[in-house]
């Protein structure tokens, strides 16, 4: 499970603890993702939905999520800030736009009093605090919650919790990864002897031209 999704899931469960609400976990993926979805159920989600399609790009994935949410009522949608392979951080805000609800990307803190959510996101040199009353989607970064681990009872109950697979809705493609490239190697380090450390300043100025 994507570590950011784990954080989002843990926060969702925390917010719904003590009968305050229910958590549905949704995944866009082919049947190979089911063991991971079961893990989410074991951690504490109440039920699960798998949209039976490979998450080919953010636009497609966000569209599927939005289509599902349109037909099922949710107060809040939480997800991880980005996938750990593509690092796009696009899905949450796209879902927000498809549903015409506010989105807050890459949040570090979320508090909820039952009607109003207070979210914190980072900005250059500081932070912004936003308050939302009503439906919204937020993507979570580190700090929103401690990732929960499944306990024995959770693992047992996960087997019988509902996991429904539904078919995706067609939508045209807008972006596709053509290839992956590795970066050019940086070259070997130029070492400066520690007794003559001041030489580094000259090199950074005259040679590297960065100071």
């Amino acid at each position, binding site marked *: 499970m994507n570590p950011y999704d784990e954080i989002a899931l843990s926060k969702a469960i925390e917010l719904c603890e003590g009968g305050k609400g229910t958590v549905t976990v949704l995944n866009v993926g082919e049947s190979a993702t089911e063991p991971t979805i079961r893990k989410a159920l074991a951690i504490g989600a109440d039920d699960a939905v798998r949209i039976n399609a490979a998450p080919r790009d*953010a636009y497609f994935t966000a569209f599927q999520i939005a289509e599902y949410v349109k037909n099922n009522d949710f107060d809040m949608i939480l997800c991880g800030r980005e996938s750990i392979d593509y690092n796009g951080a696009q899905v949450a805000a796209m879902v927000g736009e498809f549903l015409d609800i506010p989105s807050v*990307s890459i949040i570090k803190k979320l508090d909820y009093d039952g009607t109003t959510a207070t979210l914190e996101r980072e900005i250059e*040199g*500081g*932070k912004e605090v936003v308050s939302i009353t009503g439906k919204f989607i937020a993507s979570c970064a580190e700090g929103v919650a401690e990732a929960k681990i499944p306990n024995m009872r959770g693992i047992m109950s996960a087997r019988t919790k509902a996991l429904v697979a539904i078919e995706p809705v067609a939508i045209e493609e807008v*972006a596709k*990864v053509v290839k992956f490239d590795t970066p050019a190697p940086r070259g070997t380090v130029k070492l400066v002897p*520690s007794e003559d450390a001041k030489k*580094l300043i000259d090199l950074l100025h005259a040679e590297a031209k960065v100071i």
Partner: protein
Amino acid sequence: MSVLVYIEQVEGKFKKSGFEAVSYAKAIAIAQGTSLTAISIGQVDEQELKELGKYGASKVLNVNTDQLKSFVNQAYASVISEAVNKENADILVLSNSFSGRGLAPRIAVKLQAGLIDGAVDLPQTEGGQFSVKKTAFSGKAFAVTELTSAKKVIALMPNAFGVKEVNEEVTVESFSPEVKATDFSAIVKEIVRATDKVSLPDAEIVVSAGRGLKGPENWGMIEELATLLGAATACSKPVSDADWRPHSEHVGQTGISISPNLYIAVGISGAIQHLAGISSSKVIVVINKDPEAPFFKVADYGIVGDAFEVVPQLIEALKVHKG
């Protein structure tokens, strides 16, 4: 057809990352044989708006309504999309800043456009394709992504494209689009911004330190070095976890990613999760007493030595260099 670039303002001023986006957008406009229009939202002086001509904009749409004077994600996304349609632009460029990352995907959906989040290079268009390179796998690789939609949105990674002066004649035009009330559902309650220090994501030079410093009380020399260089300070995850330094300084896979011109790492071993946050830095300097520290493998310059002896020497040398 034209290219549109959105440039953020903070307290009425544009930042270097914004000028980079304008220069990048200008390069695309030239390649496409078309003009560049910029859009600014909020209260910005005419003189500051005209600066954008220096980087290639021939027109600036100035959105200066009371409603929109502060950043509101949903509302700004609507305004920028309206501007794209008004200018009949096919390509929108903006900076992949914190706010840009929340805006670009919403605009992409409004325009049914493919989005490149964090572009590091200009689009390649041979063979009628339109593809752009961005980083992937936490900076360990690049992904070349093709956009197949009619309209395209590109969010440029800060410090990935140089600012270039071209000096275009520029006109400023007022633009006041209607924005629906529901676009203001999220209410900004508070903005906290440290004004005294150089902001880490914007910094061109960063001095960073890790566990090798042994304790928070030893950070004085790091701060002094940073001040002399006009640099921001950063740290590794263990240091931030131990609360030796504020969490906002944590650079790495689960912290922030930066791409300064110069990154100086003092007493940091260079674990792969830390490298993920700084791999796009132009020049990397590593100071560590362990010659086997993995960080030396990605460093451009290095000093194997005790930080407590090396850093004071650097501080002295800088004082001489400046004085």
